[in-house]
C-alpha cells in the first residue's frame, strides 16, 4: 500500500489560514490502513482545525467526508453536490488522491493533509516500512526478493558497502542492511553463489528518470 504520514498540523493550518469554509476529505484505502487519512483522522484534523478557527474567533465551516477512494474519479463524483459549500479541500489521501481530487474539481483549491511517504507495509501496529520504489525494472529475482533499490541507502546492486555493521546500515542502527538481508536470503535459498554475478548497470529509464510514467494495456482499453 501507499504509506503516508500525517502532516504537521501547523503546516495544514498555514495552508488553510484564509479559507472561510473547508472540507476535510479522507480516503478509505491505503491511508486508512496506515492510519493517516481515514475517517478517524478526518475527524481528528477537522476537530483540531475547528478549534484553531474558534480560537481565532472565526466562523469557518469545517466539513468532514471520507470517500471510498480518491484515486477514482467515480468516487470523487460523490462530492459533486457538496463541494460548492466549501472554499477549499484538505485531502488526507495520498498524492495521487489529492491530485485526482484537484483534477476533478479544477476550480477548488485542494491542499495536502498528509505527506505521502512510500509504498510499504505495516510491520507492526504503528510501524510502516518501505519495500518498493516503483523503479519499473524489478530485479528481485536476483536479490532473493529483497530490493536493494528500496532498501539499500545507496541503492547498491553488487553488495554491501563498507558501512554494513552487525546487519545494520551505516545510516542508522534502526535500518537493516539490505545486503545483509539479501545475503541471508540467498544463503537460505542455497544460492549464495548468485551473489558473485555482477549486476548489469541499471536502466533507470523506467524509474522517475524517464519522466512521468504511464502504464497502458491496450487489451484492456475500451
Amino acid at each position: 500500500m501507499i504509506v503516508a504520514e500525517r502532516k504537521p498540523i501547523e503546516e495544514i493550518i498555514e495552508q488553510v489560514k484564509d479559507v472561510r469554509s473547508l472540507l476535510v476529505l479522507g480516503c478509505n484505502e491505503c491511508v486508512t490502513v496506515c492510519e493517516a487519512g481515514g475517517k478517524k483522522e478526518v475527524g481528528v484534523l477537522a476537530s483540531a482545525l475547528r478549534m484553531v478557527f474558534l480560537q481565532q474567533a472565526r466562523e469557518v465551516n469545517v466539513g468532514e467526508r471520507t470517500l471510498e477512494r480518491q484515486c477514482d474519479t467515480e468516487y470523487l463524483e460523490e462530492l459533486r453536490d457538496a463541494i460548492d459549500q466549501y472554499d477549499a479541500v484538505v485531502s488526507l489521501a495520498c498524492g495521487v488522491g489529492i491530485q485526482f481530487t484537484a483534477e476533478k474539481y479544477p476550480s477548488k483549491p485542494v491542499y495536502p493533509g498528509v505527506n505521502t511517504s512510500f509504498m510499504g507495509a505495516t510491520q507492526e501496529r504503528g510501524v510502516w516500512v518501505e519495500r518498493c520504489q516503483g523503479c519499473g525494472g524489478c530485479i528481485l529475482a536476483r536479490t532473493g526478493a529483497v530490493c536493494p533499490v528500496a532498501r539499500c541507502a545507496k541503492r547498491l546492486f553488487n553488495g554491501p558497502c563498507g558501512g554494513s555493521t552487525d546487519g545494520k546500515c551505516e545510516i542508522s542502527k534502526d535500518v537493516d542492511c539490505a545486503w545483509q538481508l539479501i545475503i541471508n536470503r540467498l544463503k537460505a535459498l542455497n544460492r549464495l553463489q548468485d551473489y558473485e554475478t555482477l549486476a548489469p548497470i541499471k536502466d533507470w529509464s523506467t524509474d522517475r528518470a524517464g519522466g512521468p510514467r504511464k502504464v497502458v494495456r491496450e487489451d484492456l482499453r475500451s
Partner: protein
Amino acid sequence: MGLPNDYDEGLSMQRAAFKQYAQAIPGAYAIRKADKAPCRMACPAGLNVQGYVQMVKEGKFHEALEIIMEDLPLPGVLGRICPHGCEDACRRAEVDEPVAIRNLKRLAADRVDPRGIQIPCAPARPDRVAIIGSGPAGLSCAYHLARKGFRSTIFEALSQPGGMLRVGIPAHRLPREVLEQEIEVVTNLGVEIELNTALGRDLSIDDLFRKGYKAVYLALGAHKGIELGVPGEKADGVRQGVDFLREVNLTGMARVGRKVVIIGGGNVAIDVSRSAVRLGAEETTIIYRRTRSEMPAWEEEIQAAEAEGAGITYLAAPQEVLTRNGQVVGLRCIRMQLTEPDSSGRKRPVPIPGSEFEIECDQLIPAIGQRPDLTALENITGLTFSRYGTLEVNAVTYATERPGVFAGGDLQTGPWVAIGAVAAGKEAAESILRYIEGRDVAAGRQPVAHENPRYRPIPQNETRRPRARMPELPVAQRRGSFNEVELGFDEPAGRAEAGRCVNCGYCCECLQCVDACLAKAVDHHQVPVTRDLQVGSVILCPGSEPFDPAMLANVYPYRKNPDVVTSLEFERLLSASGPTMGHLVRPSDGKEPKKIAWLQCVGSRDINRSGNGYCSSVCCMYAIKDAMIAKDHAHGDLDCAIFYMDIRTFGKDYEKYYTRAKDTAGVRFINARVHSVDEAGPGRSLRLRFVDEKGEIREEAFDMVVLSVGLQVTPETRELAKRLAIDVDRYNFAVSPPFLPVATSRPGVFAGGVFQQPKDIPGSVAEASAAACLAGRMLSAARNTLTRQVELPAEIDIRGAEPRIGVFVCNCGVNIAAVVDVKGVQEYARTLPNVVFAGQNLFTCSQDSQELMKQAIAEHRLNRVVVAACSPKTHEGIFMDTLEGTGLNKYLFEMANIRNQDSWVHSQTPRQATAKAKQLVAMAAARAATLNPLAEKVIPVNPRALVIGGGVAGMNAALAIADQGYEVVLVEKEERLGGMAHRLHATIEGWDIQRYLQELMGRVQSHPRIQALTRSLIVGFGGFKGNFTTEVLVGPGMYERKIDHGVVILATGATEYRPTEYGYGQSEHVVTQVELGARLQEHGARGLAQVVMIQCVGSRNEQNPNCSRVCCQAAVKNAIHIKDLSPATDVFILYRDMRTYGLLEDYYEQARRKGILFFRYDADAPPRVETRDGGVTVTFRDRIIGRELQVEADLLALSAGLVPSDTEELSSIVKLARTPEGHFMEAHVKLRPVDMATEGLFICGTAHSPQLINESIGQAHAAASRAVTFLSKSRLTLSAVTAKVNPDVCAACLICVRSCPYHVPRINAEGVSHIDEALCHGCGICAAECPAKAIELNWYEDEQLLCKVDALLEGIL
C-alpha cells in the same frame, strides 16, 4: 455513638448503625445490638437508660426527653428523687463508678421543658377511666391511657395533686414548680384532676361505673404512718413523720419543737430532720436501731442531714415516750446490738439489757414506715388485701378481683419507690386498654427472663474517669429555706458524665434511626426466629478467625504497645478505605515508620503456647505482600524485615513473588525466631531480640512490629460442628474421608474453606465450588424443580417513533434530597428535549416506585427511560427489568448518577450539586434519545463435556459431571487411564492410592454417560462457550473424531521432573522421591543404613522458579516410612525451607520426633554429591555449627519437582494462556481459580499447578461444578453490548484484529472484519481504534457518548 469499627480491626470508630465497609455489597446498613443494657433492665419502668444517656452525651436533650417520656411523664421529678436502681446495675462500676444516670435525666429535664415535648397520642376514644389518687401511679396511668386515646379523671383526696411526690418529699429535694410542670405534662393531654375528692367520702366505685367510667384505677398510696407501739405515744408533741411532712408540704409550715427527736432510718426520717431544721428546730436527733450501713436512707441524704446539723444515734430503740402534762419531754431508749440477719437480709437488732438511756426533747416524730389507709376500700366488694395491709392484684395485669378495677402503686406494694409506681401505672393502662377492648388482658405480657445476657465487653483500655459530683447549695443558705439543695449539672459536665457510659447494648435504641429512615426500614422489634428448612445437603463455610496474640502478651507487647499490630490491623492501615486512608503511619504517633518487622508463625506451628501445631498456610504470603505494599506506599524509603522459620510460598507462582520481594524490592528475610519485643529508646522504637542462623543473639530496633497471626476455627464453629454431629480433629478442623476433600464424616454435609483446613483464597474458592459439586451430585434430580420463570410481555416496536423520554428523579431518602434540590431537577428535566414526563420518587428502586414507573411508561407512552439516582453498577439491572416488564427493550435505559457522583461528594456545596445534577440529567436524557433497542443473542448449550486428561483429576471431573446427568467424553493420551497416580502408593496420611485408583477407573469405565477415549490426541479445536467442536485422533489407528461439546475441562496433569543434578541417572543409588516410594513399597528399607534426601531439585531455580509444593511432604512421608520400617536407618533431609503447610506440619513434627535429621542449605551453596561404588557421598554445610558435614549414603533421594505435561501444543490448538513454566493460566488467580479466561473452559489438577492428590480431586470437583453451571442451562443469553462492524466502510485494515485483547475480529470471506458477538467481551477497544470508524460498540456508540459531551457543554460557547 462511638464504637470500634471491627472491619478496621478497631483502628477507627463507627456508630451502632453502620455499613460494614464502603464498598460492601449489598451496600446496606446493619445495627449492632446486644441484650438490653443492665440499667434498662434494672429500671422498674424499663426506661431506655442507655438511649437517653447517649442523647445527653450528644447534647440532644430534646431527644433524650423523648426517650424518657416514652415511659415516664415525670422526668424532672424522677431525675431528682429516684433511688436509681439503674446505677446499681451499671457496668461502668467495673471500671470505676457507675454513671450518674439519675442526674443526667434531670439534666435533660433542666435543659428542655418537658411540657414542650410532643407526646404522640392515639386518636381520642370515647371511653373514660377514673383514677383514684394523683401520685406517681395515678399520673402514670393517666398519662399512658391518654397516649392510648383514653381520657381519664383523677380524683385526689388532698387539696393539691401529686400524692406522695408532693406531700412526702420536701421542696428542698423536689421544687414544687418542677412537680407542677410535670403534672401539667399529664393534664396537657386532657387528663382532668378533681381535687379534694376522696374515695369513700365523696364517691364510690359503684358511682364511678354508674357515671359511665369504663374502668377504675386505684392508686391511693400509703400515707398512714406506722405507730411506734410504745407507751406515751399519744402525748402532745408526738407526731407521725408522714403527717408532719404532709402539713409542711401542703402549707409550707408546721409546728416544730426546739429539740426534735426523730425515730427511723429511712428517707422520711431524714426529710423530717431536714425540714425541721429549715422550720427552725435548734437541734434534731435521729434514733436508729441499726448501724449507719443498714440505714435505708440514701447516703447523700444522710450526709446532707448531718451537714445541716442533725445528730444520729445508732443502735438505739425507743422504749417509752416521756411526758409531762401530756406533753412530750423526752424519750427513753435502749441500746441495741446486731445479731444474725433477719428476713430482710439486714442484721437483726436486739436490745442490750440494762442499757436504757434518756434523751430530752420537746417534739418526737416517729418515721418508721407507712402503710395504705384502707378505710375507703375495706368494704368494697371484690377487693382483697394482703396480710401486709396492701391491696392484692394480678402481678402482671394489676387487675383486682373486681372486673374493671385495677390498682397499683404503694397501695398495692406498700411504700416503695416512685418509679415502681410509675411502672405500675403504665402496665395498668395497658390492661385497661385491653379490658375495654375486650381482649385478653394478660396475653403476651409474662415477664421475659434474661439469662446470661450478652453485653458489649468493656474495652480493656478504658481509662478511669471519676463520676461527676453535683454542686449543692451551701449549708449556710439552707436553714429557713426550702430552696433546692442539689443544683444540677451544667451541660459540659453532664455530657462528659454521659460519655462514661460503656454502651452495654451497643445500639442504645434511641430510635433516631427509625425516624431518620424515610423508607421505614428499621425495625427494632425484630427478634431471632427459629425456622425449619428441608434441605438435601448442607455446606459449611464458616470461615475462621485470626489468632488473638493478646494471650502471648509476655512475648509480644500486643495491646500494650500500639505499634505492635496484627497483620490484619496492618492491612487496614494499608487500605485506601482504612482508618488512615492508606497512609501508612504508626498508630502511636501518626508518624511514618522507617523500619517494620514482621514476625511469622504467631499462633501457628506452635503447640506450646497457642496450641496451634498446624501451619496456617497463608501468613508467609500475606506478610510478603504487605511488606511489598508498605514499601510501595512509603515510596521506597522503608526497611521491611520478615522474621521467619521457613518461608512457605508454595502456591502457584508465589515463589516468584517471594523472589521478587527478596531480590528486587529489597525486603529482608531473616531466618530467626524472635525471643522478645521491648519498647525501647526515644521515638518509641521496638527492640527485637533474636537468635540468628549462626546461633548468635542479636538485637535490632524497629518502628513497628507486625504479628503474622495464624488462622483458627472459632468456638462458634466448634459448637456448630457438634450440633451437626460432624467430626473435627484436635485443632477443630473438619475431618474428611480419604480422597473426598470437602466431604465430612456425615454424608450430605460438606465443608469448605479454612474450616476444612488452613488455606488461601484460591483454595477456598475452589473448595466452595467443589462442595457445591458434591451437593449438586446428590441433588441433581431436583435441579430446576423450584425455579420460576418470569413471564415478559412482547417487546414494543419503537422503530420510527420519536423519542419519548421519561425522567425519574430519585430523592434516595435524604441521600440525594438533603443536598440536591430534587424538585428543581425534576422541573428542569421536563424542559429537556424529548422529555415528556418527569417524576420524582422517595426511593426509585422500591417496589412501589417500580410499579409507578410502569404506570408512567404506559400512561405517557414512554419509549426511553432515564433514572437520575445512584450507580448503574448496582441498580441498572433493577430498572432494566422494570422496562422489560412493560415491554420496552431494556437497553432503552440510561442512568444519571446524582448520588454517588453528586450529592454524596458535593455535600458541602449544595448549589453546585444541584446544578451538576441538572447537567447529569441533561446528559442522560440526550443519550437516552440516541439509544436503540438491542437484541441479546441466545445461544444453545450442548450439554456434553469434554475432559482432557484421564488422571485422577480428569476422572473425578468426568464422574462428577456424569453423575449429574451430563454426557462426558474423556480423552487420555496414554493407553490406560490413571496418569501419574499409577506411580504413587500411599498418601502421607497412609491412604492407599492404588486401591483408590482402581476403584476410580472402574467407575469411569462402567459409567453409562462417560466415553473414555485412550491413546487419543487433540488436533483441532473451535467454537465458543456452549458450542465447541474438538477434533481428536483416536487409538492406534488414529482415526479422526469430531466431538461437539459445551464445555472443556483441562486436566492434563504433570510428571515428575527428571533431574540432571546430583548424579541422577549415573548411579542406581540416586533416585527420585517417587522412585524411592516405589522401592520402599517393593523392597522395604533393606540395606539402607544412611539415606539422604535433597529438596528443591528442579524447583525454585532459574529454569523453574516455582515451588513444586508436594516435595517437602513427599520427603517427610518417605522418611517416616523408612524410619517405621527401619528405625536404625539415619535419614538426612537437606532442605531450603520445609514447606509442610497446613496440617502437614504435624508430620514434619512427627518426623523430627522420630529422629530424622533436617539441615537447611543455601541455594547458592547446594550439597555436593559424589557417586561411588555402593552409594554416594553427600557433603553439605551445617549452618548452625558452621562446618561441612559428609554423609556416606546408601541412597540419595532427590525431591524432584513437578513439571506440567504437554501443555505447549494443546495451548496452541485451544489458544490457552500458559505461565512461562507451562502451567495453564486461570482467568483470575484468586476469584476464578478453575476457570480459564475463555468462557466454557475449566482447569484442574496439576495442569493448573503442582498439588497433592487430594487437592487435585478437590479442584476436579470444583471444575466440574463450574462446568455444570453451563451444562445445566439449555441456552445462554449473551450481552448485547458487543462490537459490530459496518461492512460498507470497513477497510479490512486489520487494526481491530490486532488490537482486540481477545483475538475475536476476523477478516471474513467478504474481505471485511467480522466480530462474533458470542466471543466479544464488549470492551470497545476495536471501536476506538478503527481508523475507518467502521466499528461501533452497541450501547456505547460514538454518538451515544458524544451527545453527552454536547449536552453537557451546550451553550457554553
